[in-house]
């Protein structure tokens, strides 16, 4: 009961602020609503007993990535007059694509009830009193079976760091 109350609270905040983020004209307002959506997603992670990801989401997304976005919004001059955010034709294309995707997914979710066994929609979750300590479990998995992907991710971050520095550097005339 409490579980579902917490879920609906965070889910409604996430959906409403995501919609506001997409529709606001001011880029800073969009960034603030995206921060709200990411924070309520962190709440949903906590409700799913993923404590490590809850902290990682707040530190990395809200503390790192969003600060980067806000810095760039402040660096870049955005107050040029935007006569129209969306042309009507583009808006209708977007709305119809969204409706089609939504209907497809609902049909798939409804059909998946007929799959034998537990189907796609697991109705009996793993018992919450038998869950291992979250961070320990995650670390065992990350540094055991998924060690190679972990190393590759570190190389990816290094490449991205060097790439963004090279990209944003002021060009000099030297070859």
């Amino acid at each position, binding site marked *: 009961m409490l*579980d579902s109350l917490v*879920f609906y609270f965070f889910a409604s905040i*996430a*959906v409403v602020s995501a919609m506001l*983020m*997409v529709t606001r004209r001011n*880029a800073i307002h969009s960034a603030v609503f*995206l921060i709200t*959506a*990411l924070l309520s*997603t962190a709440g*949903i*992670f906590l409700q*799913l007993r*993923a404590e490590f*990801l809850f902290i*990682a*989401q707040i530190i*990395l*997304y809200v503390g*790192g*990535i969003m600060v*980067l976005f806000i810095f*760039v919004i402040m*660096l*870049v*001059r*955005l107050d040029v007059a*935007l006569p129209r*955010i*969306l042309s009507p034709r583009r*808006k209708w*294309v*977007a*709305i119809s*694509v*969204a409706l089609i995707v939504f209907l497809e997914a609902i049909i798939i*979710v409804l059909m998946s009830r007929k799959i034998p066994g537990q189907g796609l*929609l*697991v*109705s009996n*979750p*793993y018992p*919450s009193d*038998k869950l291992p300590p*979250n961070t320990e479990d*995650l670390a065992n*998995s990350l540094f055991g*079976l998924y060690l190679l*992907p972990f190393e590759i*991710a570190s190389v*990816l*971050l290094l490449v*991205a*760091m060097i*790439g963004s*520095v*090279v*990209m*944003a550097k002021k060009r000099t005339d030297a070859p």
Partner: protein
Amino acid sequence: MMPIGHYIFLSLTLLVVGAIGVVTRRNVIIVLMSIELILNAVNINLVAFSRYYGDAAGQVFALFIIADAAAEAAVGLGIMIAFFRNRETVLADEMDLLKW
């Protein structure tokens, strides 16, 4: 505990809202923010299935997706700054340097 369909539905809603943002907005910074929203929606799905199967693999992949999102944001915003220095704009439909 709630059935997992709720989480799938939430993730789907956030994904569709993000996709609408990517298609309709002209400001490239907001397009990048919508992509972050889409990646976040995928994370909800992974963590929900990880919780329901009692397996940490989903959370490991969610962590990788967060690292990917950080890399993508850094490179994308670096490109944005370089482009703004050249053309003084951040609107997607004025980015036509490669068209002829």
